[in-house]
């Protein structure tokens, strides 16, 4: 196994030092290290973070390999600075059995670009009617701990209660896509001024907030862990703030796009801006950013959602919702938060690793810890060209935007997956 010596790198924003990687772990940390057998990576001007961990990725395999595969999504993740991603269950077939989650897990191992941790469906076929075999998925080789019907809300309160209770047996967590389905029938975008002007059916903020309010009460009642996917409204932040103040075991994520883009993007009717939950208002963005800084929102998760061209190059109402995110998330975080490296490490690596139970990830580089890390050039600026992305799909909302920061290298257990800004395989 090749050893790597990273010189003069700032670890999570601290004064420059050297890192020696050997046998999959960080062997030494300190200035002036020498290792004649090691490949030297010049870290001057770069920042090292623990490898990023994404709680919310759609890899599309099995079923829509034309949009993404485990391998292409893993490559996109590595290029984005990730060393672990949690793969959502809404594949075809749905990841609602031990067989499917093990298939995804095995494909991730074969690609060997990031650790792919499958998420299991809460209900059979995401239909919201009866529980999937959660225990079998937990006991499988994939060791599933997060369960989610993402794309669909577990709307039935009794079913949600049972799911929250049931997964306590194996320290599982339910990740809820908070959307009251009766309030969002046919919904196309955020309900507000812009939806009125564009004549598109509105997705009201209350449809998210009502489910989060209900779910934190259910989680409190049964003493279970709840995770809220892609929080998008100021009202949701307030519900979460109060729940956390009461001690409810709830965590929450926000996507990069909900931190940056508003519903006014829909004015072009270009479905590249169609996403679920929808882009909201500037006031929502301000509340989400504040919540991310003060900890009411725990995690930035991408909701990376690749879609084939034909599913986006069409009428708005007929397009599938979702945006690419893995290769741009760090840049958006840097743009939104500034060079707050400790906060970025907390929200994009340490906390998501802890929520997902991914030991070995989300740990700052120190002697003896697994060498899962990424190197960022914070001074670089890059213009996003969809054709240059590693994802099989092109539906990035950041096309031709110039964003700060560039991933220079990523290491997974001591092996580089990205060097000089390029995937090694």
């Amino acid at each position: 196994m090749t050893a790597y010596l990273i010189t003069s790198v700032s670890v999570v924003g601290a004064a420059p030092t050297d890192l020696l990687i050997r046998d999959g772990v960080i062997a030494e940390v300190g200035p002036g290290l020498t290792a004649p057998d090691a490949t030297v990576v010049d870290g001057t001007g770069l920042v090292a973070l623990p490898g990023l961990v994404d709680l919310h990725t759609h890899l599309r395999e099995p079923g829509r390999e034309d949009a993404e595969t485990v391998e292409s999504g893993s490559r996109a993740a590595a290029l984005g600075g990730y060393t672990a991603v949690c793969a959502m269950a809404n594949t075809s077939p749905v990841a609602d059995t031990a067989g499917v989650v093990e298939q995804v897990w095995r494909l991730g191992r074969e690609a060997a670009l990031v650790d792919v941790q499958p998420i299991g469906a809460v209900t059979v076929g995401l239909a919201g009617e009866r529980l999937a075999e959660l225990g079998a998925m937990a006991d499988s080789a994939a060791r599933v701990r997060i369960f989610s019907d993402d794309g669909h809300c577990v709307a039935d309160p009794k079913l949600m209660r049972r799911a929250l209770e049931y997964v306590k047996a194996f320290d599982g967590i339910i990740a809820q896509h908070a959307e009251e389905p009766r309030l969002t029938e046919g919904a196309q975008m955020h309900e507000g001024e812009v939806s009125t002007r564009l004549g598109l059916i509105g997705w009201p903020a209350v449809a998210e907030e009502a489910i989060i309010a209900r779910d934190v009460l259910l989680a409190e009642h049964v003493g279970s862990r709840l995770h809220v996917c892609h929080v998008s409204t100021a009202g949701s932040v307030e519900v979460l703030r109060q729940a956390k103040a009461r001690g409810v075991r709830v965590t929450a994520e926000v996507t990069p796009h909900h931190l940056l883009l508003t519903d006014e993007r829909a004015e072009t009717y270009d479905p590249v801006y169609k996403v679920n939950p929808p882009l909201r208002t500037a006031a929502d963005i301000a509340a989400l950013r504040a919540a991310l800084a003060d900890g009411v929102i725990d995690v930035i998760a991408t909701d990376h959602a690749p879609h084939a061209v034909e599913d986006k190059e069409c009428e708005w109402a007929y397009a599938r919702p979702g945006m690419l995110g893995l290769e741009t998330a760090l840049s958006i975080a840097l743009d939104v938060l500034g060079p707050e490296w400790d906060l970025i490490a907390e929200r994009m690596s340490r906390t998501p690793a802890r929520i997902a139970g991914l030991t070995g990830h989300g740990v700052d580089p120190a002697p003896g810890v697994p060498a899962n890390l990424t190197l960022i050039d914070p001074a670089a600026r890059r213009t996003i060209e969809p054709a240059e992305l590693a994802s099989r799909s092109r539906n990035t909302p950041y096309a031709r935007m110039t964003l700060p920061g560039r991933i220079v290298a990523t290491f997974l257990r001591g092996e580089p997956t990205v060097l000089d800004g390029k995937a090694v395989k």
Partner: protein
Amino acid sequence: MIKHLLSGGDLDVDTATEILDTAAEMATVAGREIKKLPALRGRTVVNLFYEDSTRTRISFEAAAKRLSADVINFSAKGSSVTKGESLKDTALTLQAMGADAVVIRHPASGAPHRLANWVDGSVVNAGDGTHEHPTQALLDAYTMRARLGRLAGLSVAVVGDVLHSRVARSNVLLLSTLGAKVTLVGPPTLIPVDIAGALAPGTDVSYDLDSVLPNVDVVMMLRVQRERMNDSYFPSAREYARRYGLDGPRMRRLPEHAIVMHPGPMNRGMEITPEVADSPRSTIVEQVTNGVSVRMAVLYLLLGGNNR
């Protein structure tokens, strides 16, 4: 002149006025023995209709033919569209055939905006989803100006299912540009959120038709589908008609000079009674006639007929 007509908001005062003035000239053609001008000879206008709307399609067809354009009717029914061809592929086909203008009616809001990215010719929105129908707003403005002599300062009530109405959105935008004051009237469930901010500042909302009627110059009744009651927008057709329908007694609350409009097709007995629809105040038949003149003006100006 603008290249496409996608929204009532695309038109400033000068452009809208030019269209209305041109329409008045076009109207004189209808009075001739030979109702035809050579202005668009050799030009191709495609009517691309993804929804059944015979009245709008034949209005555009008549307009194009009176200008001597070649007209191709492309209906979603019985075409490659039903075999799953995408809007983009259809657009590229029309482009390859050399369409100078595409008139599109589509059930999805914003489809004409998408189409305009994919063809070189002019795109005219003939109604998209619950978004807009700008030529309807132009013919409504034309009708008001013809009947009442002006648009600036007029008070116009638009009554009914504003939420789902493309006619209402285009009318609010255009009438506000032209200096008329619009009040939207309907049950709160059928008035979209933030309407004034969304469309035009100064747009009023009322839930009480009777209080609005004595102060308006124009009352425009919108078509209300009975099926909306199945989605709890209102309890029953009967209650809707009682609160928001225009009947004889209500019509008599209007000022002497006020006119009653309806974009058609009407639900007689729902939003309007036969007594009102067939009264001298009603402009419903004139609106259809004016529609051809206004659409002639739009096609003529968009295709640069005045520059040749």
